[in-house]
């Protein structure tokens, strides 16, 4: 079936390797707030691919990737010089270099296509990627670079962590901060280059950013974040490749990025503590408990007014104070054992009375409020004088 297909096997293995390397290295790029560096490096690879093609005279993978690495490094150096020698901020420097190199790349691409060379075919696949063009021999290159990335991150783990978190302190310890930063940047450039064939220069940045951003949502420590990021990268790659292999001839690269984006979306929404939904839920819960406290103190003050601890307040009256239905809040308070629904003949509508625990809780709330500021005692009923 699907998995038995030689080409699909190759594509999936390539996607997994790419997902691991870009996931691991992307974690550091994202934490160093250099998400866009990957984007710049990817776009800067295009003129290199064209240069490699012109020099080799044919579509030879080695020379294409060599060219990509060359112009990528050139772009990285240019960003570094701009940041150090001019007053440009990082985003502006990255943006300028990105567009310069991409424009250069597109001009070269159209130049090559205009020469109507028979072997030019598929060079524009580097724009959006063409996973099916990956060969078994390419996998060795991808595997080698992935292994190198994993080995370097393992060996220099604490150094990479420190220069990412606190480069000043790292420098005071005598760590070669610039050399380590350059090493990380070079590794990201390598990851970008091996991803070009699969996802293309335009979308490659997402391979660097997406797994790391998704992983960051689920953990508070760097170690699990990096592992999870590699896992997300590999999963996104596999699922995307499988979907594209279902035979509707959909592009693999963009599909991988789409799957990855779904992972990011779910993580941003649903992850505990950092997720948007979790945040909303927390805030709603807090607001409810605040409202509940207000209702409780209202009942308490009504009971004071009537000199009856167990004074049954009519629900309609409580509703009227708040201008909204309070049934749900009262039921919640009842579930906590703070109020109880009582019958009050001859009326048949709902009445609520404080329980013993509810009275103590209301007194406690009012006491703490009074402690801070008498004016914060903001209950709808004026305290009887």
């Amino acid at each position, binding site marked *: 079936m699907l998995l038995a297909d030689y080409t699909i096997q190759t594509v999936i293995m390539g996607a997994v390797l790419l997902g691991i390397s870009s996931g691991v290295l992307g974690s550091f790029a994202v934490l160093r707030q250099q998400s866009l560096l990957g984007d710049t490096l990817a776009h800067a690879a295009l003129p290199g691919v064209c240069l490699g093609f012109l020099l080799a005279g044919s579509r030879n993978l080695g020379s294409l990737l060599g060219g990509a690495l060359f112009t990528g490094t050139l772009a990285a150096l240019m960003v570094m010089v701009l940041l150090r020698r001019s007053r440009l901020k990082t985003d502006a420097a990255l943006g300028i270099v990105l567009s310069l190199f991409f424009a250069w790349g597109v001009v070269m691409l159209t130049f090559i296509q205009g020469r109507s060379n028979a072997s030019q075919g598929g060079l524009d696949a580097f724009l959006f990627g063409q996973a099916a063009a990956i060969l078994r021999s390419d996998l060795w290159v991808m595997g080698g670079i992935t292994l190198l990335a994993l080995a370097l991150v393992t060996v220099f783990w*604490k150094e990479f962590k420190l220069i990412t978190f606190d480069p*000043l302190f790292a420098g*005071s310890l005598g760590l070669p901060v610039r050399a380590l930063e350059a090493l990380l940047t070079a590794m990201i450039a390598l990851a970008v280059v091996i991803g070009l064939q699969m996802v293309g220069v335009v979308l490659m940045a997402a391979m660097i950013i997406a797994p790391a951003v998704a992983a960051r949502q689920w953990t508070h*420590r*760097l170690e699990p974040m990096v592992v999870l990021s590699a896992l997300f990268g590999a999963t996104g790659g596999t699922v995307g490749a499988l979907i594209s292999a279902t035979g509707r001839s959909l592009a693999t690269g963009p599909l991988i990025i789409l799957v990855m984006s779904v992972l990011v979306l779910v993580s941003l929404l649903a992850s505990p503590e950092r997720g948007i939904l979790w945040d909303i839920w927390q805030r709603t819960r807090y607001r409810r408990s605040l409202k509940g406290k207000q209702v409780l103190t209202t009942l308490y003050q009504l009971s004071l007014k009537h000199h009856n601890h167990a004074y049954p307040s009519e629900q309609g009256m409580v509703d009227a104070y708040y201008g909204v239905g309070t049934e749900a809040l009262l039921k919640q308070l009842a579930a906590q054992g703070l109020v109880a629904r009582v019958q009050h003949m001859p009326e048949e509508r709902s009445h609520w009375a404080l329980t013993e625990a509810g009275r103590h809780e209301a007194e406690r709330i009012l006491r703490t409020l009074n402690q801070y500021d008498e004016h914060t005692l903001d209950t709808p009923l004026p305290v009887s004088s």
Partner: protein
Amino acid sequence: MTPLSQRHEPQLAVHVEDLTVSYQSKPVLWDIDVNVPPGVLAAIVGPNGAGKSTLIKSILGLVKPTAGHIYIHGRPYREQRRRVGYVPQRSSVDWDFPTTARDVVTMGLYGKLGWLKRVGKREQQQAEDALELVGMQDFRHRQISQLSGGQQQRVFLARALVQDADVYFLDEPMAGVDATTERAIVNILRELRDQGKTLIVVHHDLQTVTSYFDWLMMLNVRAVAQGSVQDVYTADNLRAAYGGQIALLQSESFLQQLESPADTSADITPDASGVN
């Protein structure tokens, strides 16, 4: 004079000669001499843009000086790294970084650990002991973004403590922290001084200079004055360092009060005023 490779002014904890630092041809520090004896709790004060942080960073080799020599206990900084501790400005790092308080403190041991070695049980124990000294032992597993500003500053201080240094540089450790933390930090700094260590603190609050510190350096691109606090903390020096801004910082009556007791301002280090 002895050759540079040998010990230079070994009786001083920090000795800086003719230090000049410039960013894009604009001088940030101009021909500074610094002499700090060992065993003092020293403050560096000066207006915004006076180069206080830059002075610390260039002593630590984080900023490349245009000119000048730096000695820690008589030797160049490169040879004395293990004897120096550093607390950067709290705002210089991203506190949303995925790590715990204890993990940040163990970073202070990376220098001693060296390459390739991993953080082990011993390092974690050292970090926990340091967290206890700053009253943060209960927060050791806490994600650092969940800590308050004062707690983050204490974590940074604990990281410097595990460095077990002889000379400490602290960049605005009291900025934006609560009163309890400020008191705790001052107590720890005093304790370190009493152990014979030297502490050099960039400080922003003139009101507390005299009560916290025993050595003072006033900076405004040039070194305005340095010496013991009672000698240096004078109305003349404050005016020289802060210029017109002093009116915003202190009332005139405060300055007059400073002027009245006696003329102690004559005791300024001679080097500081001879610069032009």
